[in-house]
């Protein structure tokens, strides 16, 4: 399968020697949530992950749970958030992160079509693993949405191979056996997941979960093509930091990543 636009975009930047940075924001966490996304883009995000909040976020730690709860209690809906994206011109490719039920409820075909309409490039569903995603890939393909698959430290070799082969946009390497959420140190498992994936594919490999500081980002990116940063940013949003302040946070990571390594 030929690379889609998201993958092409990330490959291009990666191949140009850049460590990729994908920051996250929960859609609707505040009224001006889109401004966070815009600030990320300005600070040098290579793509932006936008969470559509779900009532039962099984793979999320406390910070993103709270961000989701805030958004939901503001009364946002997936449909409304996508509507906001339409023509928002954030300045970087957008990847939607949401749980399976949000997609199934809307209907996979309709949902993917709508993503494409509002300019979204990729889709991540943390509770729909490789085996179950097959029922959705047709819909995503038809709509031109790149379905990103996750690989975990526990993933066996044969599964990893298939995940690497079938993931689109990039491969999402989970650093740790655990939920999203900040951690004091990067898990040891992070490196091996990245290394194993890199042996299997030339697709961009991005590591996520528990990457909180610029130093951790650099560490995680050492064996991979880039990082996804979520909880550390969302904690700041919950604490009331402005889009500008979040932009500065992302910039700090961007700059750390841009320092030529060893």
């Amino acid at each position: 399968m030929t690379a889609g636009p998201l993958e092409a975009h990330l490959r291009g930047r990666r191949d140009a020697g850049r460590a990729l940075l994908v920051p996250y924001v929960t859609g609707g966490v505040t009224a001006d949530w889109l401004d966070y996304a815009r600030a990320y883009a300005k600070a040098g995000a290579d793509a932006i992950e936008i969470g559509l909040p779900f009532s039962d976020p099984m793979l999320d730690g406390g910070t993103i749970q709270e961000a989701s709860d805030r958004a939901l209690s503001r009364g946002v809906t997936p449909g409304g958030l996508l509507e906001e994206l339409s023509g928002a011109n954030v300045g970087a490719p957008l990847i939607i992160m949401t749980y399976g039920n949000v997609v199934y409820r809307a209907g996979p075909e309709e949902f993917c079509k709508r993503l494409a309409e509002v300019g979204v490039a990729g889709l991540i569903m943390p509770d729909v693993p490789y085996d179950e995603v097959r029922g959705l890939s047709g819909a995503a393909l038809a709509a031109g949405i790149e379905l990103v698959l996750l690989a975990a430290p526990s993933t066996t070799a044969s599964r990893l191979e298939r995940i690497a082969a079938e993931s689109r946009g990039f491969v999402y390497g989970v650093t740790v056996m655990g939920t999203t959420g900040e951690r004091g140190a990067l898990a040891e498992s992070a490196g091996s997941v990245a290394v194993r994936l890199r042996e299997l594919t030339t697709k961009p490999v991005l590591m996520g979960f528990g990457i909180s500081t610029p130093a951790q980002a650099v560490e995680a990116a050492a064996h991979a093509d880039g990082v996804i940063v979520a909880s550390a940013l969302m904690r700041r949003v919950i604490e009331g930091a402005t889009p500008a302040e979040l932009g500065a946070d992302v910039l700090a990571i961007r700059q750390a990543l841009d320092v030529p390594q060893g």
Partner: protein
Amino acid sequence: MSLTLWNPESRSAPPRRSGMDDPGSEGRFGRFGGRFVPESLVPACEELERGFREAWADPAFRAALNQTLALYAGRPTPVTPAARLSAELGVTLLLKREDLAHTGSHKINNVIGQALLARRMGKTHLLAETGAGQHGVATATAGALLGLDVTVFMGERDMERQQLNVFRMELLGARVVGVSSGSRTLKDACNEALRNWVGAVDDAHYCIGSVLGPHPYPWMVREFQRVIGEEARGQCADLLTHGVPDVVVACVGGGSNAAGVFAGFVDTSARLVGVEPEGGAAVTFGQPGVLHGFQSYVLQDESGQILEATSISAGLDYPGVGPEHAHLADTGRASYVTMSDDEAVAAVSRLARTEGILPALESAHAVAWVLRAAGTADLPSGSTVLVNLSGRGDKDADQLARLM
């Protein structure tokens, strides 16, 4: 919007004999079931499936399980002819007495099975979610019996409402962890247990309390509860002229007691009726969706957010339903009805006065259906009906006393 989540024709599935068989390696019951978990958990689910398949085929495991159920949990439980209520209703009412099982409900059948399996698989720790505390107490019990550590996740709102069950679990040596996210009830406890399992898969077995969760749970739990139906089948054969009752009825929360008793009668002429609580009727009022690792009918809003169930009986207070029930509803092999809180309370009182049996509020939903249906086309006079009395009502006395 039409949903075509699953096309059974396109998948390889084992041949179905009766509609309640092995759901294959993908854990599919028609268009429902599956394994919707984070990639991190997939290997654990696969390991569990392998472990269960091996154990279930191993006569030594079966023997150990059967022996524990008999010597420890009090199986077989009897089938009691409810003589006085039968006479009042004009039908022959039989009660499968899971209320007499150790810890007071059918939940023990499942946790003993899972705990023995966990030990066999080298796990040292059990995780469980609990709503009112019944499954938590049962898991704490099985953990104590086999010397496994137990951590139970329980919504903080439920912990306040069910302080005594928290104490009971702690007395049994379990650690009870409050869950403060979401609605702070059962569904959030499930989320939290799953989250925790991700970080503890090596040592921990997640002991799910009903025919819910990712494959192989819905199937495995049904198999562990099948003993209800198999015993009842033989007991009905002894008690009834026609051998098989006309109707088999059970309450449906997640659906494990119903699945267990249905499994014994699915290949007979008996009609199977699942009774959902009006405030938590996923089959009746839900839409297809994905929750806690499986595809089934789920109570949800227009945009796919999960709704809270609000039944008087904590054990039925779940917004989803086991995928096999969704399938049995699709195929029509079982039918699903709802009962109101008031009908359940009235059924507790009626059964207490006529038979000296205080059913759990959960189980009272099944009794309530008999009270409503007897003498109608649903259950004509002269019919025979087996109710799975899934648990005893002692736990509910406090709540009932406040209500009545």
